[in-house]
């Protein structure tokens, strides 16, 4: 493995990690602040993908399509929050798992009914097509852009959470939910905002991966599982945990996929590669049962 290859794989891992980070924020905030498990988070990634395809087809412009798709995802998430999530906040985790799992099935069938089973495609926007020079390496410009956007979003989140009143409420809610409620904060609106924020990030992740893998029904489900691993590793309720967890999982999964088959042969190597992130999760839990950066329980 030469240095350029290691570097390129590092970038690949970083890119995967940032996508996972975007997904994990929504899950970890909803779980940490509202104490609610939302398994249908992956479906929002799928809808983000479908919305961008539809929006670009409608408007003929990627930029305009992007704005429309984000708006549509936000709208969808607010509807889901009001109709499905609100009754679930008071219920136990099992009810939430059952309900949101049902939501996954519903959303997948809905996608089939509206868009059919065949994958839909979207080209990489023209100005991002082709490679860029990254430390002497020819790396796909689009993948670099995804990483950059996710990093920018991460910075924006950092500012939001750390420097604004809303961010303060979110942090307070993660730490001491009950106290925030008792302080007279409009908790209903806060919850909707948090849910919508997380969902838009998932939608953004979906929007960004469509040119790479196309969009099809149920595409978010495998990503959800990895997202849950990230949240468990990073710690529930913690955005910092989502970032660190995401990067860890992204990089280790990428290198695991490459290195295990080299050292253990194709068969065993592939099997081990699939297990990498779960081994990591088990190791982290042994060392830090509540994850790496858990928000103090509320």
């Amino acid at each position, binding site marked *: 493995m030469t240095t350029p290859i290691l570097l390129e*794989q590092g970038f690949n891992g970083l890119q995967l990690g940032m996508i996972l980070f975007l997904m994990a924020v929504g899950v970890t905030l909803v779980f940490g602040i509202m104490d609610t498990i939302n398994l249908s988070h992956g479906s929002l990634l799928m809808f983000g993908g479908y919305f961008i395809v539809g929006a670009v087809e409608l408007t003929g412009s990627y930029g305009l399509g992007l704005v429309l798709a984000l708006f549509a995802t936000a709208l969808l998430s607010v509807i889901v929050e009001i109709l499905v999530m609100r009754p679930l906040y008071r219920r136990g985790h099992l009810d939430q798992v059952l309900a949101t799992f049902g939501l996954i099935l519903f959303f997948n069938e809905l996608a089939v009914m509206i868009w059919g089973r*065949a*994958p839909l*495609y979207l080209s*990489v926007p023209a100005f991002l097509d*082709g*490679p860029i020079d990254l430390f002497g390496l020819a790396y796909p410009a689009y993948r670099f852009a995804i990483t950059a956007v996710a990093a920018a979003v991460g910075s924006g989140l950092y500012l939001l959470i750390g420097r604004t009143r809303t961010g303060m409420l979110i942090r307070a809610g993660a730490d001491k939910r009950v106290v925030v409620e008792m302080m007279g904060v409009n908790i209903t609106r806060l919850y909707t905002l948090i849910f919508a924020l997380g969902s838009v990030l998932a939608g953004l992740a979906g929007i960004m991966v469509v040119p790479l893998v196309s969009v099809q029904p*149920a595409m978010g489900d495998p990503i959800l599982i990895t997202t849950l691993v990230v949240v468990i590793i990073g710690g529930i309720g913690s955005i910092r945990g989502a970032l660190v967890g995401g990067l860890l999982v992204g990089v280790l999964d990428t290198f695991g996929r*490459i290195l295990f088959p080299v050292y253990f042969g194709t068969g065993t190597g592939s099997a081990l590669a699939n297990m990498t992130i779960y081994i990591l999760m088990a190791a982290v839990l042994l060392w830090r049962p509540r994850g790496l950066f858990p928000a103090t329980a509320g």
Partner: protein
Amino acid sequence: MRKLFLAALLCAAPLVQASAEELRLGFISILSGQLALLGEEQKRGFDVALEELGGKVGGVETKVFVADNKGNPGDAVQEATKLIDRDKVQIVTGFAASHTTMAALKPLLAAEVISVGANAGPSPLAGKGCNKNWFSTGFHNDQWDMAMGQYMTQKGLKRVYFMGMDYQAGWDHVKAAIREFKGEKAGEVYTPIAQMDFSAELTQLRAAKPDAVFVFYVGPNAVAFLKQYTQAGLAKTIPLYSMGAISDPLLYKAQGDAALGLVTTEAWNTELDNPANKKFVAAFRKKFGRDPTGYAARQYDAVMLIDSAVRQVKGNLADKDALRAALRKGDFQSVRGDFRFNTNQYPILNVYVQEVSKRANGEMYQKLTGVVVKDIKDPDYVNCKM
């Protein structure tokens, strides 16, 4: 007098009904989930065939039982069991993917239900595991790729990198190509069925600096792989070879121009010049407005094979031995031209080379560029003791 007449009529009625036997035909495939594209397309070929036969396979009233295995071997076993116990099917067809096929065949073959596969041709059932009730009309998983391996050798390629999906079909297809390719294997990588992002694998591929790449990817994975291969700039520098299923009418729109020029091997092509194929392609185009894919063509063939066999036994479905013998004869008009089974009930086929091209009207299609191998046999039949 009238009462006598009516009584005689009533006595005759059961006799009339007894000679019109009913064929209970099962269709089990992947109709939901990641690979649902394949099963849905098989069903289209199935429907075209049934329409042509007027709903009567072999001249017998046919009741169709459709089962969805959801692309999951566990569900395949359950659905197959339902077909046997609840629906009491006599013949089953469909069988899109190798892993679900092998799972579904466990209960089916144990119950001695005649199973006529229209796509997947898993190698474990072609040799020692061969069974008198399993007819693989589609192909043996190795065949197209053996031909491609020979084709790549003929082209003088020295080092080829091999990639595929991590399940029975992926292993069969890729290993067959490796076996027949006489040059150097630069790498052999299998990715999980659920994996759609190949950035890490493509980086390794580029590092290996092969002369060419051979892959086995189908359905949505084929779309993702091809797009990423092109985006990574590899399409311009390292030629890509594959088998026909990597790019077909279901995938053209999603793959776009990234698919143009792709060279693949397959045992069937829309342009094959025989009457059955011309009839089938025309009927499919009329019904669905586009070229059929191989999945539909092979399912059409499977139904026509069953039709020929049922006709030969004159609708006497109870005589399973006669039915099996009739199926083994393979005496029907196949869209692939001449059709015959090998001793292990897997087909002996001609394999063609094709190239993804564009028609004058902009429609993409697989252009038939030549025959690679005639009458290719799978390597496992020697181990089959039938």
